């Protein structure tokens, strides 16, 4: 069941690049005009303060409210971050137009080449987040990528758009360790796939086991390794798999509050990214390991720690967790006071998780 996506996705990746470039140019143009007219340049953007972050039930993610902040170059306290922001916009423009990539760390050092300085990494990170807020694109869109890397494996053919590889295609089953979700893959176009679902996995060990056990074939799935909390590039990648390829997404994590939250951030995003869209996959499902699985499958467990319990109470009040499933699982965790890792299934043999548990859970969650 091959899907031919060529036309649809081609537009999406290069169009997006153009949109990013245009909005960066427009920012420069606005500032230029202000100065040319004899005004101190100023920038208005949605406030990212905690009071302006709301959970949107329609979008099923956190969003920023109406409140705006204005940065003015006339204000002595604003002018430095203002300048850093304008520099960052120019740097992002150069990266994107020349199709080069960079990392947050790299941005921090690159500034010095332009006679700009950041006092530390958090300062430069925060300026990049400002830039995301101002132009409404995430930093991966202007080619600034995180250091963390996750991976993907499965029958999906992509076509690179990065310089030197334009038009080159790759099937994501080519490498048995999976293919790293780096800048090149993030900007690649999806060409075709035979998969009908995506399975996201928290841990590398299980990801490798799934590949060995040919889960991608048995379940017709694209496997994504989140490597703990999924980086934004990975979340965006999952979002694209879901939106562009219409693939349902199932997430497997450890059976504890931290694993739950890894799934939740893929589904509904984080408050930190309230200014961004297209990082969430609201229809994705958390398929395990649930607290009820611990009971039903009699998994080997560890007791919940104080911190685990505190975290569970926090999650219980979190608007993203209001659905019945989440509340039920949180209650169960609190009741049994135990947690289990994905590897716990190995007590039933190496293939049990693939042969028994996975089909049952996929059935259950879809």
């Amino acid at each position, binding site marked *: 069941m091959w899907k031919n996506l060529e036309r649809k996705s081609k537009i999406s990746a290069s169009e997006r690049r153009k949109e990013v470039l245009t909005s*960066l*140019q427009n*920012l*420069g*143009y606005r*500032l*230029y005009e202000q*100065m*040319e007219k*004899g005004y*101190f*340049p100023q920038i208005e953007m949605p406030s990212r303060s905690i009071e302006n972050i709301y959970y949107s039930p329609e979008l099923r993610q956190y969003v920023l409210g109406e409140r705006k902040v204005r940065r*003015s*170059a*006339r*204000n*002595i306290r604003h*002018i*430095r971050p*203002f*300048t850093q922001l*304008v*520099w960052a*916009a*120019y740097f992002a*423009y150069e990266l994107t137009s020349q199709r080069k990539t960079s990392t947050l760390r790299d941005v921090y050092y690159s500034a010095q080449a332009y*006679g*700009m300085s950041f006092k530390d990494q958090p300062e430069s990170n925060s300026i990049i987040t400002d830039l995301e807020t101002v132009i409404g694109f995430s930093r991966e869109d202007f080619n600034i990528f995180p250091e963390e890397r996750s991976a993907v494996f499965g029958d999906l053919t992509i076509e690179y758009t990065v310089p030197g590889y334009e038009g080159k295609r790759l099937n994501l089953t080519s490498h048995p360790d999976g293919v790293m979700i780096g800048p090149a893959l993030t900007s690649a176009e999806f060409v075709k796939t035979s998969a009908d679902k995506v399975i996201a996995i928290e841990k590398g060990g299980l990801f490798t086991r799934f590949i060995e056990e040919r889960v991608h074939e048995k379940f017709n799935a694209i496997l994504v390794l989140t490597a703990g909390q999924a980086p934004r590039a990975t979340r965006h990648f999952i979002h694209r798999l879901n939106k562009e390829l219409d693939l349902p997404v199932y997430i497997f994590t450890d059976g504890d509050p931290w694993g739950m939250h890894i799934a939740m951030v893929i589904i509904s995003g984080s408050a930190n990214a309230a200014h961004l869209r297209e990082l969430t996959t609201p229809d994705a499902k958390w398929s395990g390991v649930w607290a009820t699985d611990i009971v039903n499958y009699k998994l080997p467990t560890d007791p919940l720690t104080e911190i685990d319990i505190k975290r569970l109470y926090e999650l219980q009040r979190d608007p993203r967790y209001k659905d019945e499933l989440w509340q039920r699982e949180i209650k169960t965790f609190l009741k049994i006071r135990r947690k289990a890792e994905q590897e716990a299934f190995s007590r039933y043999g190496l293939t049990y998780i693939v042969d028994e548990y996975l089909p049952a859970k996929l059935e259950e969650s879809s």
Partner: protein
Amino acid sequence: MAQTFEEISPADFFYRNRDIAGFTNPARAIFTAIRELVENSLDAAEQILIPPDVYVRLISEGETSRGNEIYRLRVEDNGSGIPSRYIPSAFGQVLFGSKYKLKQTRGTFGLGGTMAILYGQITTHKPAKVISSTGGSKIFKYTLMIDIQRNRPIILERKILLNREGWRGTIVEFSLEGDYMRAMPKILEYFKQTAVMNPYANITFVDPRGRLYMFRRATTEMPPPPKETKPHPYGVDVELLQRIIYITDCNNMVDFLKKHFHRVGENIARKFLKFANMDEGKNPKELSHEEIVHLARAMKRFPDFLPPDASCLSPLGKELLRTGILKELKPEFVAVCQRKPSTYAGHPFIVEVAIAYGGEIPRKGDFVLYRFANRIPLLYDEASDVSFKVIHSINWRRYGVSPDMPIAILVHICSTKVPYKTVGKEFIADRPEVKREILNGIREVARQLQRFLSKRAYVERQKRRLNIFAKYLPKIAEFSTKLAGKERPPDIKKLLRSVEKFGEEI
């Protein structure tokens, strides 16, 4: 008691009590000897309204058996010179001279250099040399010793030289035991502070290591010389009365009072004697000790004495004080203040205060305090001094000042009788009247310093502000231009100019 006292000569008395005069130990002695002679020299020049040139040389002459050094001290000045016939007494007799207690002078004990010479003679048994000329055709050169028991000079040699060059001044040279190495910090500090207080003087010092210290005058302006004045009756004590009686040539009480006391005329003298129940015709030399005590008490109680005037005082004046501080401390800022004349216990006094910031003033975690009494630097027992206490009672934060700033505070008290707390004469007692004047003076200059500091802070803030705009605006312009794909950057000169005018709005 009085009888016993009379049997000891003043020279003998000071010999036995040399701690009082500041010759406590070899280090202190050399400091005091230099100070006494330098102050004499400065006085001698000021008397004839000539900016002083003082040259001081100290040479080592070897060690004593006790391990201290013997030094040869030579002090030269361009002062009035001393008439030939007075030279032996001026340097060979303790308590000689008209300058004793008639006006504000520097010499703290009225002893001039005699005590120093006496100390030199005691410790080295060597005679002193005095060379002096009043600018006439002759120069007189004496070699002297002091007969301690009889308080008389012994002239060993007297030479008369022709004064071809018209030289005027005095040279004193004698040997004394001392400890220069230990005294050095105080001696150098003394010269520096003397240079502050006498900005019109050239002072040169060559120390035993052959180092030359020069303090050049910054002006030839000099303060008006003090008018000679007599003690005010309110401030007279038994000892002073005794001394005046010792030197007086009056043979009745009315003349005695009129001649020796400030603002006492015929009328008041008679009224007072009536009040004191004392015979107008009595010869003061015949007063018994009990009568002298009675007289002193009556003087304090008599209500009709006129208040003293301050014309006898010789403050340095604001301009000279400023000049002296600028010359020696090279501060960024200085404020000076001269208080109006005031009195304590019948003694007129004037307080002068200055505050200086920055420049060569060290940061030592506390204010640098310079204390002067009748223009003499006070270098010992700082923490006991009233000025020290006043400074540390002030809430400096009110003035935006903290002790770790480089700040020097100078307090000068001039009075016909400086209220020293002890016989050592190194610190001022906390007399409420004096304390109040010092406090108000310091407050006044502190307010000026506060204005300076806040204005400077404002200017610096503005400068920093402007620098920040000048640093960042061109960059904003540059990157915006590149982003917008424009050829030339926008004109931001107008924006930069406007920053200078704007406060911190928005």
